């Protein structure tokens, strides 16, 4: 392959930080060689030999990259180290004029440090101004300790912003002990925003919250197709036999929405 291979100062800095030998000048220079040794390393080994100071410096220098969808994300094994957590939090607190996108990227990385980030996430859910960032925090609660996850999800479900409420309703379905928030999920079935209602329905189904069955059954004739669809599925997941016996289920086999009708025909047997 043909491509230019300059040795950048950045690569040299990383090399020094990692305690690697600098590339031999006589060898075919590959600026990516040092970075490659980091980026290709398994998460645990990438930073194993790094001092706290070196890691902190490297994490401070990490620049979020554009994902294919256009968002920003930190993509580096440097993040997969519990020592990165305080540095990321420091950046959130201390860096001036961080864009919402960058803040979202920083909070998205918190769970990936492998450290106990839950308390920090709960705190940030109460102080972060940008709804988009709070939504990302809520989504990351899946990897928090159960206590922090539930506390954070409860905050998210009560958030003024629908994007955050939706993220909160969604993450509850993934939580160990998420059924402890069943009442909050049922309350979310009356949310003004379709996405929140649907997320709550799906979480109730995933958690198999039996007491929610009647409430979900009442949604089979909801005016919104996605609500009908996911209520149908949630009912089936909670109690398939009982769901199949519901008159509303059979009626949905003739629903005007093709996805709803298909699901009803499949689940109705």
């Amino acid at each position, binding site marked *: *392959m*043909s*491509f*230019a*291979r*300059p040795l*950048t100062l*950045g*690569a040299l800095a990383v090399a020094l930080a990692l305690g690697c030998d600098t590339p031999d000048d006589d060898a075919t220079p*590959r*600026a*990516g*060689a040092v*970075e*490659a040794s980091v*980026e*290709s*390393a*398994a*998460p645990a080994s990438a930073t194993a030999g790094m001092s706290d100071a070196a890691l902190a410096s490297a994490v401070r220098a990490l*620049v979020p*990259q*554009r*994902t*294919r*969808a*256009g*968002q920003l*994300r930190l*993509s*580096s*094994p440097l993040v*997969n180290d519990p020592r990165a957590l305080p540095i990321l939090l420091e950046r959130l607190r201390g860096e001036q004029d961080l864009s919402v996108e960058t803040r*979202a990227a920083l909070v*998205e990385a918190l*769970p*990936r440090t*492998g450290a106990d980030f839950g308390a920090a996430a709960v705190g940030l859910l109460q102080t972060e101004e940008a709804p*988009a960032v709070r*939504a*990302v925090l*809520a*989504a*990351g609660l899946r*990897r928090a300790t159960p206590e922090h996850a539930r506390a954070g999800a409860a905050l998210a479900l009560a958030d003024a912003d629908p*994007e955050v409420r*939706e993220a909160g309703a*969604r993450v509850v*379905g*993934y939580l160990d002990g998420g059924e402890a928030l069943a009442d909050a999920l049922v309350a979310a079935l009356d949310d003004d925003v379709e*996405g929140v209602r*649907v997320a709550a329905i*799906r*979480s109730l*189904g*995933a*958690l198999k919250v039996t007491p929610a069955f009647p409430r979900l059954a009442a949604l089979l004739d909801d005016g919104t197709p996605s609500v009908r669809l996911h209520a149908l*599925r949630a009912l089936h997941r909670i109690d398939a036999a009982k769901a199949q016996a519901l008159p509303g289920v059979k009626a949905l086999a003739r629903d005007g929405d093709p*996805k709803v009708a298909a*699901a009803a025909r499949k689940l109705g047997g």
Partner: protein
Amino acid sequence: MGRKRWVLACVLAVGCGGDDGGNNMSTAGSETGSDGTTTDGSESSPSSDGTGSETGSDAGTDSESESDTSGEPGVDWSFADIRGVANDDDDNSEGRRDWLEPPFDADNDLEPLTLPALPEGEQVRLTIAGDTNHIRLWRGGAGAPFLGANSDAAGFEVTFTPDAGESLWVEFGEYNARGTLKLERLDAASEVLDSAEIVLHGAPLILNHHLQPAEHIWVVDLTGGCGAANGPFLAAYDALGDRVTGVPGTSYDCDRWIQDEIEFATGHDGGGARQDVTIDSIRDRGLDDVPEDLFFSADNAYNTWGKGPKTSFDSFGNLEISPPVTVDGVEYPFGRVYFGRDAQEGIDAEFADFLISQEIQAPFEVDSTWLCVGHVDEWMSWVPDKTAPRGFRFLYSDVDMAYALLEGLDQNLPLPRFGADHGYPTVGSIVDDNALRAYNEDIRDDYLLPMRARMKSELGLSEEEIIGVPSIFEELGGGCSGLGLALIPGMVNLIVANFGDGDSHLMVPDPFLRTSDNDQGADPLIAAFTAAMPGEHQLHYIDNWYSYHLLSGEVHCGTNVRRTPLVTNWWEVGAHLLGGN
């Protein structure tokens, strides 16, 4: 390639050294009348007496010329249809499309229309119809077009006295531009002696499918100062040698998604000469200048369609092409284009309309709106297979296969990569996540299975042609609330680097479904995928974890491939698809 030469043909046509006032492109002494007609100021020459003429001129006409016409040969008034390419390239390297300039010496995209020598006093009337905004004729190199787009010809008609053996030049300004040209031979009294009509057809833009041999590959080199650099990715492509070019990422804002910014296509003129075309997406991220910088030159055109507002759907990972298929008796010799779009959102409508207007690859839509990135290449692809009924296999994401595979593994198998970056430290943690499974079941039922059925229907696929690829998707939050993305690196998002027999490669994302990074042999997904793939390919499993996967893409997203057309006579093999041709 035997491309025609503008200057040489004109010299032969007008006979250099004549008294043409120094402009060898113009008819000697001609004058242009106010109605756009031209008359030849030269002494009238004998008209044809019709004897032996193929055009059947009026036998009752007596020549009034002093010349003896009894031995004059008949005038062959037959002409071939003209097919050319859109003059979208830059043959004189001036940095702008040649259609925007008058003809020049190096322009090899104009098609000659050579007129036979006519008896004295006769004229030619040309009438153009059809896509007259994008087709024009030139007579000589200077001034305005003679007929058609941007010309002064009123009513799309012009009458003139051609020089003996004069050639006009037909130029196309759009892909699949179509028109007709009526050529009438007139006597001195403007009576029609003969008439012919030909088709003028600009080549449709034809996009590439995976059965076409790879010519060259482009990736973005991020190792010169970009974050999440792709050293291992580039190292894997080193196996393909000098057929891969690394575009310097630092020159393009470290935009690594080269699949998304450009799409390679071709056009062929009636003689089979090829023009390469790069479609430039309205995506307009860091790689936006790549078409102009790398792919705009002689015989290399580029263009953009679509007004936006742009979305992720406008990236060209959301635009793919099937291999050649026959569906319900209809042959698609160049395959069919498909892109992600539904009633509410998807690829830009104007661009979609343009693709549809090309006709020959009969585009259709599939629903990609369930994905965060929203690209059709995230869940399906094609690989050549000489043993397959039609020479290919269709790779399609299958969540049930993935769960079956996972459930068959040691549930305590550690998965360091998934533990660190996705929160799934073991196989069992993936299997036991009820919400994750529910999400995958739902997208299977709502999207994967219906779209599979749609692909089968639109492309006439048989079950034998389909290879399921174990895939699991995760449900995102944040800006992609509730939308999906590959949890396990999407192995269908691969590159087919088929340079020739014995030199065909599949560049596949490494799924890392194992404990040790360095032990690809222990990876059950790699084993399953390898076993399923056609044996004619060398398989390369590429570490694109940090450089692409965690940034919502995989190998295919970070690569682009130029391919060799297999068929060039589109007007013959695709005639049934080109309406009105």
